[in-house]
């Protein structure tokens, strides 16, 4: 059992004119291993504190927040690795609903804009659309995204252009479906990202890679989308002369 110091961002738009930081001294029990455990202790002290949480094991992505200046999931952030006072803020770049809870509407609008689902116009088979193990392996490093928003909200390109730049999470998902052997909309997906600000606002700052709690690499996926653009241009040029050939996608 020990005491830890926390400084937590507080803002209730119904009551507060502007946000402020509130300090808490919290008694941490030996069983409290993760930051979320400490937050639940704080919630016991002050039930007005608002935060999102659900699975408490890094699967749902609900408790994504800014921890000592870096985005992460409270439920898988070890208390023993945090420098005191632990400064907790909501994820940057999104409107704050209350305390550590942000409005993720823009994030999910961007995510939906890349059509994050399979597009296949063939008649459905009796069971399921099968993939070879090799084709399935191409989805590794892509499908694991839990949409916590840590990457997108740590990206300066998203902060400046949230309504234009899709953001790392959305682009990772765009590439996830581009590289799916069952998908038939590769050309449309690439066209969808061709507007100057949707894909190309990524300046390889790589905050997304640094903060991803699932250790994914959106920056590499964005580079792969650009590779596909080159392949698409090669195909368009070849199509003008001869017949069409398919684009080969390699695993990350």
């Amino acid at each position, binding site marked *: 059992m020990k005491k830890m110091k926390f400084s937590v961002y507080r803002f209730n738009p119904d009551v507060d004119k502007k946000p402020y930081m509130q300090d808490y001294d919290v008694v941490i029990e030996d069983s409290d291993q993760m930051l979320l455990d400490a937050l639940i202790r704080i919630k016991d002290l002050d039930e007005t504190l608002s935060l999102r949480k659900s699975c408490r094991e890094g699967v749902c992505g609900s408790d994504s927040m800014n921890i000592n200046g870096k985005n992460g999931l409270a439920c898988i952030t070890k208390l023993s690795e945090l420098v005191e006072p632990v400064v907790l803020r909501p994820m940057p770049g999104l409107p704050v609903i209350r305390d550590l809870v942000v409005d993720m509407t823009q994030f999910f609008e961007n995510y939906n804009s890349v059509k994050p689902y399979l597009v296949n116009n063939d008649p459905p088979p009796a069971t399921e659309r099968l993939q070879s193990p090799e084709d399935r392996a191409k989805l590794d490093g892509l499908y694991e995204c839990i949409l916590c928003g840590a990457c997108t909200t740590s990206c*300066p*390109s998203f902060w*400046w*252009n949230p309504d234009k730049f899709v953001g790392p999470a959305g682009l990772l998902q765009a590439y996830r479906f581009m590289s799916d052997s069952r998908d038939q909309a590769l050309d449309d997906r690439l066209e969808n*990202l*061709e*507007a*100057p*600000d*949707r*894909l*190309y*606002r990524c300046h390889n700052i790589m905050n997304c890679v640094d903060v991803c709690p699932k250790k994914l690499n959106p920056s590499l996926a964005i580079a792969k989308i*650009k590779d596909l*653009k*080159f392949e698409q*241009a*090669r195909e*368009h*040029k070849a199509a003008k002369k001869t017949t069409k050939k398919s684009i080969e996608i390699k695993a990350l």
Partner: protein
Amino acid sequence: MVIELLTRRYPGMRAWLMQRLTGLVMAIYSVMLIARVFDLKPQDYQSWLMFFEPWWMKVASLLFWISLTIHAWLGIRDVLKDYVPNPQVRMMMLNVVVALLWVYLAWATWLFCTL
């Protein structure tokens, strides 16, 4: 294929690729320039004139300046789009940048042509 990507069909890729290609031109020129400085070691005004006198040096320098103009335009345009939210102010600043870049390009062209 690169030419295909520089067409209007790919507006996003065109700007992105153009920035990298112009960067490459500037990098190659810079290395060449430094090597030539070490080789000729120009000391005074006359030797600098001779430094830029060969026709290929003028062409390379002009190519560098054109690349710099395009590269600067794309970069500053992005910076202004990011940091100047007011559309009128941003448009005014973009126009100033365009005017300045044209003036600098015309000036550089005149310099290299009259050397």
